[in-house]
């Protein structure tokens, strides 16, 4: 069974075996507004926990996307680069950002579960 966890930077992460799929939360897309640009990390590159691993831009501003865990980028979602509006439409499912082969499963431990994240998002509505 896969579990979904959430970061304070409003990313979600779903772990299946040692591959994690990462995207941004619905709450994040609501704060950003219409997303019109997405940039993803390169396949084969390594990313470090809490480091930047992409960019999303709305009509208003650019925001970094962080990775909640370390690993090697094994896949990226070209569909959201070609049509960034898909991120607003289905952020926590088909509009995933990238997949990582993760190094250290224990990095997942510090992340929030759904209930905690929902509470966090409500309290940090900025």
């Amino acid at each position, binding site marked *: 069974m896969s579990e979904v966890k959430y970061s304070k930077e409003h990313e979600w992460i779903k772990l299946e075996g040692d591959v994690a799929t990462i995207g941004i939360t619905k709450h994040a897309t609501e704060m950003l*507004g*219409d997303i*019109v*640009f997405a940039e993803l990390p390169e396949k084969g590159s390594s990313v470090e926990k809490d480091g930047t691993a992409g*960019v999303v*831009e*709305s*009509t*208003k*501003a*650019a925001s970094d996307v962080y990775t909640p865990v370390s690993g090697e980028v094994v896949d990226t979602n070209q569909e959201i*680069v070609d049509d*960034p*509006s898909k991120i607003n439409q289905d952020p926590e499912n088909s509009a995933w950002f990238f997949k990582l082969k993760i190094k250290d499963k224990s990095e997942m431990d510090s992340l929030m579960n759904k209930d905690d994240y929902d509470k966090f998002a409500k309290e940090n509505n900025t």
Partner: protein
Amino acid sequence: MGTKKTSLYQLHQDCNAKFVEFAGYHMPIQYSEGIVEEHKFTRNHSGIFDVSHMGQLFIYGSDELIKDLEKIFPLDLKNLKLNHSKYSFLMDKDAGIQDDLIITKIDEGFLIILNAACKDNDFKILKELLKEKYKMVLDENRSLIAIQGPKSSQILNEVVDGVKDLNFMSGNWFLFDNQKVYITRSGYTGEDGFEISILNNYADKLTRELINKGSKLAGLGARDTLRLEAGLCLYGHDLDKDKTPVEANLKWAISKERISKGDFIGSDIIIKQLNDGVSKIRVGIKPEGRIIAREKTKIFNQSDVHIGEITSGTFGPSVNGPVAMGYVENEFSKKNTKVFLEVRGKKYAANICSLPFYKKSYVKGVN
């Protein structure tokens, strides 16, 4: 002094506006449908913008006032017909732009629409330049509502009979609810539209009626993407005191007759620049991919020499791609010149292009 609210504040709240503070006012940046939807609805139907934060300056006077204003603005005001409007700017003695504005000849003088962030300073400057000879009112009792887009004429005419017969850049007094409203056919979106100057107490009622007839509120976010696609300047970004109208590529707005006389503030510099050329000039810039180059992005030539900066950049919903404008050294200002934009440490190809990016019924500048 606290942040001010316009008379449409309650309506904005009712329509789930997200507010930002802009020039000392709580202004709606967007409503629930979002900037892209509001932008497209304005282009295709009709959008309403609360621009009540802008200054409405009434200056009362006749022939002497015209003469005095011609010493300030590079306009042929003595030949400006009653109820006709012109785009212009307030310059300092070096021709630096202190504000851009719309001036309209009305019965008792002139109505000047000023940018919100500049209006108090403009008032001070103008009062001094006019030596307090004329009655000047920066009217806080009136709201300014813009309705823009192809369906706006029909919608507004249902609420204020007769407006559909106005010509572009002209205005008149009309009646709404037995109150005098001054309406001009103008705007800042590249669409047909109107700006309505109305007493604060009636602004909410008028706007709700326009919504009932099929128009929708659109926020400052959509106003920004619309004006940028239309190639129009935003003061404080594309225009400021360090830029002249010639550098800003706005020489079309300077009266030729007035240049030949050269007797307005800043005219020495304007004439010199028109004769000798300028070192930097405002251009349209179209990135080749999807990358968005925002304000302050550095522009490089093909030899990697820094040649300018972006002053406005965003994603254009109607163009369906990124759009920008900025200033480059004059020799790189020709259409189709390849340039590079530095975004987050990387350089991306872009082309100098003509403005506007978007013009009614066809789209310019799309790859």
